[in-house]
């Protein structure tokens, strides 16, 4: 179910040339802000939780998830070079799973690791804040990658749709309408983070069992459907 050649090509597509620069930009910014806050403000658990929750988990993880998830397959479908991959004797679900693993690895590397470092910079992992948000970022990476990989196979506007979901649905509607929070990857990941640290700075609106079930269902469902979609892919010309 894992094809090293496909994985190597996907890594190259995601991290080759200037593209890695975008991916380094966001974590770099997080670390700079964390250092600045620590320098201005000193260590403060609440500020650390706000910054990691508001910037790292709510903005950075979804953005990197969109870039990695859709970037793993979208450009290939867009310029039609996916046919060379599809014509090889590799199963379509294998292609999807390999690309998903790569996307998850990239998202984790560029979001969870900086979150952990930023957490330690901010307050030296006081009250387990850094570890909790890292766990949340790891979990969210998996779900976001699966979701956005699926989007990449469905639509050529995958990046825009993914960003609208991440920024408008989760951030805007999530803060206005309580019901929208139940259907938000971020809240599911927070539920797990809450479990890790216990009651305190991090709270989620979704109960842990619900969150776990939804996470697993969304990840597996999106992966299966992406594989299915790739089997019946029609290539359209440029608009």
């Amino acid at each position: 179910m894992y094809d090293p050649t496909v994985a190597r090509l996907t890594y190259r597509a995601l991290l080759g040339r200037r593209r890695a620069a975008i991916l380094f930009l966001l974590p770099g910014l997080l670390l700079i802000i964390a250092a600045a806050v620590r320098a201005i403000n000193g260590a403060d658990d609440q500020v650390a939780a706000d910054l990691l929750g508001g910037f790292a988990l709510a903005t950075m993880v979804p953005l990197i998830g969109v870039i990695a998830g859709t970037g793993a397959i979208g450009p290939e479908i867009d310029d039609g070079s996916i046919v060379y991959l599809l014509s090889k004797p590799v199963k379509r679900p294998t292609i999807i799973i390999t690309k998903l693993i790569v996307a998850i690895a990239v998202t984790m590397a560029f979001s969870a690791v900086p979150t952990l470092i930023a957490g330690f910079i901010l307050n030296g992992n006081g009250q387990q804040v850094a570890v909790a948000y890292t766990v949340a970022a790891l979990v969210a990476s998996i779900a976001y990658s699966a979701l956005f990989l699926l989007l990449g196979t469905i639509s050529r506007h995958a990046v825009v749709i993914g960003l609208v979901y991440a920024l408008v649905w989760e951030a805007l509607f999530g803060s206005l309408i309580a019901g929208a929070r139940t259907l938000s990857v971020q809240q599911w990941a927070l539920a797990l983070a809450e479990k890790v640290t216990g009651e305190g700075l991090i709270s989620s609106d979704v109960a842990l069992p619900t969150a776990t079930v939804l996470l697993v269902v969304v990840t597996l469902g999106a992966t299966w459907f992406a594989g299915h979609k790739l089997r019946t892919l029609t290539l359209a010309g440029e608009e």
Partner: protein
Amino acid sequence: MSTPAPEAAPDTTRIHNIGYRSYDGPRLGRSYARRSLFSQSLRGAYGLGRSAKSKVLPMLLFGVMCAPALIIVAISVYTKADELFVEYTQYAVLLQLVIAVYLASQAPQSVSRDLRFRTVPLYFSRPIERVDYVLAKYGAMASALFILTASPLLILWIGSMLAKMDFVEQAKLFGQGLVSVAVLSVLFSGVGLVMAALTPRRGFGVAAVIAVLTITYGAVSTLQGISYATENTGAVPWLGLFSPLTLVIGLQNAFLGAPASFPGEVPVGAGAGVVYLVVILGLIAACYGILMARYRKVGL
């Protein structure tokens, strides 16, 4: 049978004049080509002249942009309020995500595809220069953004007259709002086009534009909030210099009668306002310079 003698050849081959003629009609020239490129890019930014599928997104975003203005007008007329409960200058700030998504979806389609399919040399085989191409694309993107951001203000203004608000005051506020969104359009389209021109792959271009606009705004707001919370209010206006949207917010706060909307309602004074103006003009000039440099060698 024998082949014809070589001596026969000069008699049978001859160059025919098949009537090619050189073009001696009017030549429309450089300014016409520039105008065409401008209008095609502007139409393309709303999907006009492209497939039905590519009309969906810009038209949808245009609708989303205008819908709140209609609702505000309806409520204002119904309750006979004597002023709109959203300021003209605040409208674009409230709907910044819609503007960012619009720019992120349309800036790459305007420039990235020309780069990726290597059609840029074809443009330059026409009588246009590099500066014409950059100006046409930049102008078209800025005009498209201006249409997107000014239309809801126009709806608000018409609504304010329907609700019989004070004409002179509303006209003044409307004018200030228009100047503010004009600055925003030119600044944002410059940033968007630079990001799109540097990343020929459409998906990365979209993500890069969104990242530059929203991440910097989020980061600046967070830092402003923290420096306000730590009694460090002097730093708040200066932090605003580091993201496109807070630049516009600060400028309209200083010169265009907009209320202070940084954390803690810290106002931007006239002195800081001048710095904001200089930074905005510098950024626009820098975007133009980067675009000119980008197209110096492209595809040739």
